[in-house]
């Protein structure tokens, strides 16, 4: 699927995703990568702001998979795992975990954001990694961290980017051949909150609670609930059950 990575770097852009769309309109090849040093309108899930000061890694990767479109959500897991593996060369791997579907955590703090958008027959994989700066994350009840807080030596951002992109290319090509099968176990081995009680925010104030029982072969979350048994979940924000319950209690008053 990706025979060659083609990297373009710009100093400042609204969002690398915006440039990726233009590139797709212009028939960009699978493996096109657009990096910016600064984003003025970086975005996360639900159009949350992703603060993008200079010093971190912001890039969009364009891929055109041969897997059928209904399997494309699995790319979310593949990307988060590739990033976790790359970080493992800089940070003690036992400190790194993955929060479903694709948050990468270091000591339970969020170090990166990954958001994927389908555009025409391509996927734009948007990635922000906190290398040296820990921006405030708006509208999200989750602490953030940066690689420089955990790494013994200074991180060369270009080296980090190249290692990550190389890992990502290999993993995406494997996914394009074999779908999620080779990734389920390695992802689960790094999963945060496995078999723990979690709260899942579905949509604004809707929440459900249960025990996180890992991921299905298609990547959906398996949530064991008291009332409805095992559920397969395709979208939502995961938090620990206790603080989320407190929040829900407050919301009632």
């Amino acid at each position, binding site marked *: 699927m990706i025979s060659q990575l083609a990297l373009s770097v710009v100093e400042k852009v609204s969002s690398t995703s915006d440039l990726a769309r233009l590139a797709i309109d212009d028939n960009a090849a699978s493996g096109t990568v657009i990096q910016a040093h600064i984003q003025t309108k970086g975005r996360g899930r639900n159009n949350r702001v992703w603060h993008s000061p200079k010093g971190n890694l912001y890039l969009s990767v364009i891929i055109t998979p041969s897997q059928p479109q*209904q399997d494309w959500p699995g790319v979310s897991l593949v990307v988060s795992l590739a990033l976790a593996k790359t970080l493992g060369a800089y940070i003690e791997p036992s400190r790194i975990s993955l929060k479903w579907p694709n948050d990468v955590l270091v000591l339970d703090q969020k170090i990166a954001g990954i958001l994927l958008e389908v555009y025409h027959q391509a996927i734009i994989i948007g990635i922000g990694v906190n290398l040296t700066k820990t921006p405030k994350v708006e509208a999200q009840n989750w602490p953030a961290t940066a690689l420089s807080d955990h790494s013994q030596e200074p991180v060369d951002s270009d080296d980090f980017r190249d290692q990550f992109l190389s890992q990502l290319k290999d993993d995406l090509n494997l996914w394009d051949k074999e779908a999620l099968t080779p990734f389920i176990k390695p992802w689960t081995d790094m999963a945060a909150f496995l078999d723990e009680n979690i709260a899942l925010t579905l949509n604004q104030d809707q*929440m459900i609670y249960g025990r996180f029982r890992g991921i299905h072969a*298609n990547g959906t979350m398996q949530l064991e609930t008291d009332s409805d048994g095992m559920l397969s979940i395709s979208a939502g924000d995961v938090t620990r059950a206790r603080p989320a319950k407190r929040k829900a209690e407050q919301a009632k008053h």
Partner: protein
Amino acid sequence: MSKAPQKTSDAVDERVRLIRELAKVMEDTGLVEIDLEDDNVSVHLSKTGTMAPAQMMSPMMAAPAPAAPHSAAAPTPFETAKAAAADKSVPDNAITSPMVGTAYLAPEPGAAVFIKEGDNIKAGQTLLIIEAMKVMNPITAPSAGTVRQILVDDGQPVEFGEPLVVID
């Protein structure tokens, strides 16, 4: 079900003839629903009546008991056993979901919806978003037309192939 005023018995006969012809077309082609509209007449024929797929998915609508009580009636993204695509009352030209996921009718919580029933839309316009595992899938209009039916609610789980919107 003609909306046009019936001025003369000739006009009524004409409508009856039209409906008979359309019914025959439905028999011949296997269509289950026909909408016909021009300056003088608006006809909607359906063999089984129309029913939004959400109404047929009672297992999914069951509210999770220990969940936030203020949202007890809201749908939750459980995988549904029922394939709504098999629902014969949905027009063949309905736009369907490309993946299992959650449907959003607005770009972000609290924002204005992308479309409303009756809206005239352009080809390529975003109708809704299907999210699955932080993969955002904008569903766009394949051609210009009018939004006839929106078959899903905001935040509703959808199956692969499930009808989402009817445009003609």
